[in-house]
């Protein structure tokens, strides 16, 4: 009988860990489904709609890269809570479509997993909460340190930066970030 305890304990811990990991992905996926609905209502009503009543953030934009079929709803702010549910819009930066740099960041293993497949020249489409639609073209990618992003908020062009952790396949987190830079090519309603 005592011989059964170690394998059971191991199995237990293993299950907990596995469940926890799966839970992060499940949360990320489920949140996007709820966010998608909240965002559609936002666009329709023009008001900030919280995806669930106790949320401390709200959807601000939709990112789409049609070539690879990727899409995500961006939330306001980049607190840990927000990033668990979707990409976050860094608060110091402007909204997409405004003069300056809009910076969106998300986890490399959930919402921005698709960034590794985005090629230079791809069209990144942003739909803002107010329903306005902007097309950006990816022009440069770079790997930087988190505290030396080199992103200048007060630029004179209309720019977009998508940021996530680098390297993509690492399992632990590090100081390096992958940034994909894009410039506005078209804006319409």
């Amino acid at each position, binding site marked *: *009988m005592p011989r059964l305890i170690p394998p059971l304990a191991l199995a237990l811990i293993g299950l907990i860990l596995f469940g926890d990991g799966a*839970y992060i992905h499940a949360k990320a996926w489920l949140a996007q489904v709820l966010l998608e609905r909240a965002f559609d209502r936002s666009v329709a009503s023009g008001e900030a709609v919280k995806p669930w009543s106790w949320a401390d953030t709200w959807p601000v934009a939709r990112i789409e890269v049609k070539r690879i079929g990727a899409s995500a709803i961006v939330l306001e702010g980049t607190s840990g809570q927000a990033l668990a549910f979707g990409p976050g819009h860094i608060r110091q930066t402007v909204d997409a479509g405004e003069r300056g740099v809009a910076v969106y960041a998300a986890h*490399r293993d959930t919402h921005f997993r698709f960034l590794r497949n985005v090629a230079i020249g791809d069209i990144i489409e942003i739909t803002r909460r107010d329903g306005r639609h902007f097309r950006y073209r990816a022009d*440069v990618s770079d790997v930087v340190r988190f505290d030396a*992003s080199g*992103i*200048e908020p007060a630029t004179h062009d209309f720019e977009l930066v998508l940021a996530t952790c680098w390297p993509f396949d690492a399992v*632990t987190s590090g100081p390096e970030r992958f940034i994909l830079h894009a410039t506005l090519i078209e804006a319409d309603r």
Partner: protein
Amino acid sequence: MDTYDAADGDEHPLLGRLIRVGFFLLAQSIAVMLVAFVALLVSFGTSWSATTEQASLLQPGDARSGSLLLKEDGTTTEAIRLGTDVDITVSGPTLRARVTQAFRNPTKDWVEATYVYPLATDGAVDTLKMVVGDRIIVGDIKERQQARVIYEQARRAGQKAALTEQERPNIFTNSVANIGPGETVLVQIEYQEPVHQSGDEYSLRVPLVVGPRYNPAPIVQSVDFRKDGSGWGATTDPVPDRDRISPPVLDPAKNAPVNPTSITVRLNAGFALGEVKSHHHNVKVESRDDTTRVVTLADGAVPADRDFELTWKPAAEKAPSVGLLREHVGDADYLLAFVTPPSAGQAAQKPLPREVVFVIDNSGSMGGTSIVQAKVSLTYALGRLQPNDRFNVIRFDDTMDVLFPASVPADAAHVAEATSFVSALQARGGTEMVPAMRAALSDKLGDTGMVRQVVFLTDGAIGDEQQLFETITAMRGRSRVFMVGIGSAPNTYLMTRAAELGRGAFTHIGSVEQVEERMRGLFAKLENPAVTSLSARFSESKADVTPAIIPDVYRDEPLVLAAKLDKLAGSLEIKGRVGDRPWSVTLPLQNAAEGKGLSKLWAKRKIGDAEVARTLRELTPEDADKTILALALDHQLVTRLTSLVAVDKTPSRPEGKPLKLSELPINLPAGWDFEKVFGERQQPTQLRERHADARNQPAARRPTPAAPDAIRLPKTATSAELKIIAGLVLIVLALILFVFNRRQPLLTDAA
């Protein structure tokens, strides 16, 4: 367990064992579920906290990437050197200054240099010239953003370029791009300024160093709510440009002074000169004739660590009381008038009883000689109070004390108490000026028929001037604010604007020797009624006069008017009241003397008026900006919204060679205490590498690796994969063990 086995084993050995196994498994599975549930709850927490920003603990100093440390001892430091020459020509009531900065690059790299320096608050900066070898490139005035773009383009293209930007009305930044190895680039700016007059003393002031400013941390009071009415907002920084006005400061204990400066003043007073005196520098005064002098520094160049102040007096008893200058520019005439109203009969008038609130700044920047000057000044002021006056004393750093709950009569006991309070003050801490100003302006006694005055002693070393101005505007009521600028490099912009908004006057005290003379002058103003209800009228011409509403003029101060006229004809009549008597003076415009740069002075004052109107909420920020921009572009002036930019069309830096940025360090103002300001000794100066090639750094447009507003990217990796992998490994391991365990009993049974 074995003993139990033996005891129960007799009756139902197999059944008992099965039941026990069943119970065990049930208990285990409940435990598993419980633990799993708890673990899941906990994992919420951990996964949240694991994804919060890890950046906040890092100090800016750690974050500089690609930085080159320089050797610390002054002799071998490989850095951009700067020499400054100031050449001033005084023509009667106006002066023109030419400031030449020589940027020498002794390093082997191509360098971009930035230098933060002060200029006179009233100075109208209109010219930028860059001298490269034997070529002179004259700068153009452009909107600030546009000038920045032109400069950045030239910088990237390897062309030499110079950019002059205004950070505050008295703080400017010069940037020079692409200084080659071993090269020297001269940058020359020129400005026009009126000469300051007080009584029969004329003066000019050349600030040479920007005192390190205290920039308050963002506070919750200033919140920008989003316009969409969602009720969400972000707190704003009271000093959004704090990195632009905080150049590195050298610790005088560790470094030789830098930035040698030579000064020449060609004084052409327009009247026979009496005493000419420099207050903080040794000078040589050469005399050509009665009305002209040439003033140079006696010991050659000096380090730029204190303001240069020169005063002169007429040989005759009285200074001329009226001055009138004209200039024709474009299709308009510009006029500058100086009128000193007669002082009221002093003996006849007994000063009105007053309520005076003294505010003394005992923050860290006042450490060293400044706090001594401030204490001596305040002690002197306390001694001048009359028994029927009321007074109070407030001291502040980043904390604040109000001596008496409300103003008290200035009897011997109260004055003695205040004097001992003042003499015990020590300089330390930050400079939170706004709460002290609020306390001083809150009028607790109400209208008692007393004149209410606030005397504010400070060096003005703060970066959020605008907040102080708004406090004065909002709360001034019937109080009048008198500013006393203390120390070797006070913030003159803060002093003049605060006194203007507070309808008072200001004075500078740069050394203990000046205390008595200057405080006596200030008290003469405090005690004597001003010339009030002033108005100006042109008989024949249409005029755009600044100031539009003429403020009260204190004893010994001249009234200075600038006007733009459609034609120079008729006369100017100025009316007012001195005490209770009416006073007026009429100046025929035909008698005006030819002057130079008056249009710029007029425009500069109009710009100042627009800034004041913006602070007073008389103009919307948009309208004020529009007015300022139009004036600045018309008259070629550097303002908050316009910069001068000069680009040498010939590219000089070969493609592919990197460009390094050097932020030129400044001296600590003389008499300041380094440790009181910065707390501890600083890191050595650093050169930062910077790629001129924008392709390497897509969004890097400005060298702000350590700037507080640089964007930090949040942590964007979850531990999901790590957990899944580890979980799977453990489950597989458990399965192997389980199978192995099941095998063993079978094997033993078989055996």
